C-alpha cells in the first residue's frame, strides 16, 4: 500500500466497537453514542494502559501461589498426596502419557507465562511510543487473544477429576488452594487482554498519539 495510512481517529472519525459504524463524534473529548446501536462511543478503550497494567500485575502476583500451592489432593486409604501443576505434569510424563504432559505443561505453565510477558511487552512498547515492528506486535496481540483461554485447561481437568473420583474411603480427590489462584491468573489475563486496545500499537508515532488514551 503506497497510499498514506490514516487512522480513523486521526481523521476525526470514531468507530463503534459494537456495530462497527464509523461516525462523526458528537464532540472531541466525549464522542457520544453510536447513532446505529446506541452504545457509548470511545476513541480508545477507556484507561487502557492503566487497567491493563493493574490486571497484569494482579495476575502476576497470583501466578506465584498458583504454581506453588497444590491444585489437587488425592486421598487414598493409605496415603494423601498433593499435586501442584508442575508435579501433575511430571506425573503424567512419568506414567507414560507424555503427550498429555506436554499439553498440560504448555497450557498451564507456558501460556500464562507467555501471556504475562507478551502483554507486558506490548504495554511497554506502547508506552515508550515505539514504532518498530507494528505488524508483529499486532499479531502478538491477536495470538494472545486467541490462545489465552486455553490456559483454563487445567482448571477443567481438575474440576472433572474431582467430580468423578469421590469413592470414599478408597480414593477421593479434592481441589487444592492453588486452583483459585490459577484461575485468577487466567481470568485476570483475559480481562487484561480485553482492556488493552490494540489500536494503541498503531497510534505511536502519529500526530494523534496518546491524545485520548
Amino acid at each position, binding site marked *: 500500500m503506497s497510499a498514506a495510512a490514516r487512522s480513523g481517529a486521526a481523521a476525526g472519525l470514531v468507530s463503534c466497537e459494537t456495530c462497527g459504524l464509523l461516525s462523526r463524534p458528537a464532540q472531541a473529548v466525549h464522542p457520544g453514542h453510536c447513532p446505529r446501536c446506541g452504545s457509548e462511543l470511545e476513541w480508545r478503550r477507556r484507561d487502557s494502559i492503566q487497567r491493563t497494567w493493574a490486571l497484569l500485575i494482579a495476575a502476576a502476583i497470583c501466578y506465584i501461589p498458583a504454581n506453588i500451592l497444590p491444585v489437587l489432593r488425592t486421598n487414598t486409604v493409605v496415603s494423601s498426596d498433593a499435586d501442584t501443576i508442575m508435579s501433575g505434569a511430571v506425573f503424567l510424563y512419568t506414567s507414560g502419557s507424555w503427550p498429555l504432559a506436554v499439553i498440560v505443561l504448555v497450557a498451564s505453565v507456558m501460556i500464562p507465562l507467555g501471556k504475562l510477558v507478551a502483554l507486558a511487552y506490548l504495554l511497554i512498547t506502547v508506552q515508550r511510543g515505539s514504532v518498530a515492528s507494528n505488524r508483529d506486535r499486532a499479531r502478538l496481540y491477536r495470538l494472545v487473544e486467541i490462545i489465552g483461554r486455553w490456559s483454563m485447561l487445567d482448571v477443567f481437568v481438575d474440576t472433572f477429576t474431582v467430580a468423578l473420583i469421590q469413592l*470414599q474411603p*478408597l480414593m477421593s480427590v479434592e481441589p487444592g488452594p492453588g486452583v483459585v489462584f490459577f484461575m485468577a491468573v487466567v481470568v485476570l489475563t483475559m480481562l487484561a487482554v480485553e482492556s488493552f486496545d490494540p489500536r494503541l500499537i498503531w497510534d505511536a508515532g502519529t500526530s494523534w498519539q496518546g491524545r485520548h488514551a
Partner: protein
Amino acid sequence: MPEPTGADPLPQATVEPPKRTRLSVIWIIPILAAVVAIGIAVQRILTEGPTITVVFKSAEGIEAGKTFVKYKDVTIGHVTKVELADTYGNVEVTAKISKRAGALMVEDAKFWVVEPRVTLSGISGLGTLLSGNYVGFQPGKSDKKQTRFTGLEVAPIITDQPGRRFVLKAKTLGSLGIGSPIYYRQLQAGQIEAYALAPDGKGIDITVFVATPYDKFVTPETRFWNASGIDVSVGAGGVNVRTEGLVALLAGGLAFDAPSFAAPAGPAAAGAVFTLYSDQATAMKQPEAIARVYVLRFSESVLGLSVGAPVTLLGIPAGEVTQVGLSVDPATMALHPRVLITFFPERILARVTARDQATAKVMTEGSDKVRLQLIRRIVEEQGLRGQLKSGNLLTGQLFVAFNYFPGAPKPKIDWTQDPLELPVVLSTIPDLEAKLSGILAKLDSLPLEAIGREVQDDLTSLKRTLEDTSKLLSRIDAELVDPLKTTLEETRRAIASADRMLTNTDATLVGKDAPVQQDLRDALQEMVLAARSLRVLTDYLERHPESLIRGKTQENK
C-alpha cells in the same frame, strides 16, 4: 477500488439470479440434532422405572446419587435423595428403580442397609468396606404395588433360598436366638428363623429353616438337639467333652441327625413338628419300650448316687436309677435311702447271643408270673443282690451293680409288692476320705516341735559334754590311748555333724520342709551312741584316771 485499466470498459460477468428461496441444506443439522434429542428423551422415558421412598431410622453410608439398590448383587436402582422425614425421627431415602425391577416393588418387599456386620451367623457385608454401603432388597410375594416402604434395621434372615421350615418344641430357649445356626454332621444346614412362646405357655416353639440339600435328611425319625456351647458331662463313664464348633460355642446352635436305630424314611413334610432335646446323648437315646421298675432299700448313705446313674447286671448296663429318696420304717422310725431303678430288659437282650435269644426273650416278654418265678430263682438260689459301687473316685459318683453273692443271707422279700423290692448288700466302697483324714490326723498329732526341741537340748548338752572332754583332753599331753584317739576323732566328727545338724534343724525339723523323721532318727541314734560311748569313757576315766597313762588294765577292761 481501482478503476478499470484501458479505455474500453471491461465486460461484465453474468449474474445468475438466486433461485426461489428453498429450504437450505443447512437445516438438516438442527433437524438431526432435534431427532437425536427426542430419541434420547424418549428412551429415557421408556426405560424409566418407578421412584420409591424408603423410610429408615438412619441412613448410614447412604448418599444421594451414589448409593445403589442391589438385589442379588445386581444394581436395580440408585438413591436420588436422602433427607430427614417430616417427623425428624426418620430418614427418607428416595430411589429410582430400573424399569426391569419395577415390577418387584410390591407390598411386602423388604429394604435394608447393607453394611459390614458381625452377627450370630457370621460376618457379612465386608465387601461394602470397598464398594460403599448399599440398599439391599428382598422381593415380596404380594401383588399389590407400593411406592412407600419402611426400611428394616437388620437384614431379613432368609432370602428366597430353597429349603424347608420346621417347628421345634423346646422347654427353654437357652442360648439360642434368631440366626443361630443349625448343623447336620457339623456342616451348617440352616438357621433359626423365629421363636415364640407356645400357646399354652409351657414351652417355646422355634421355627427353623433347613436349606436344600440338607432338608431332605430331615425325616420323621430325625432328632434335633441343642448343640450350644460345650457339652461336658462327668459320669460313671468318665468325662465327656463335646462341641459343635466355634459359632455354636459362642452363639448357640442346634444339630440334627437320625439315630442309628431309626428306620429309613422319606423326608419330613414342611412344617413338621419335632422335639428339641437338651443334648445329643438324650436325643440319640433309643426309646425303650419295656421298662420295669424295682425298689432298692439301702442301709448306708447313697451320697453320690444320682438320677440317671447306670444300673448294671453282672457288669452289663441294664437300666438306670430313676429316683433317689428316703423311706421311713413305721415300726422303728428308722430312715433308709430308697432308690427306684428302671430296668430295660431290651438292653440285655441286645447282648445275648442268637442261640440264647429265645430263652432270654422269656425273661423279658414272658408273663408276669413266669418272670417273677425267674427273678425269685436268681435272687434266692444264686444270690443276686444289688450293691452300691463307686463309679468315679474323683467325683464320688456311685452306681448300682447287681451281682451274684452266693454267701449272702436269705432276704425277706415280699414277692407280691409292686414295684418289687430287690435285696441289697452293703457296699465295699473304701472310705477314702476317712482314711486320708485319719492319716492326716495322725501326722498332725506327731509332736514334731517337741521332738525338735528335745533333740536340740540333747545336742546342746552333748556339745557341753564334748567341750568338757576336749578341755580334759587338752590337759593330757602324753600319748593318748588309741581307742581314746579314735573315739576322740569320732567325737569330733560327731560334733561337726551335730553342729551342722543344729543349724539345719531349724530348717529341716521344725520348719516346713522337715525331712522325713526316719532320717533324723537315724542321725540322732548315731549321735546318741557316740555320746553314750563318750560318757562311758569319761565315766571310766573319772573312776580310773590312771588309765590315761597306763591304758585300760586287764581287769578294768
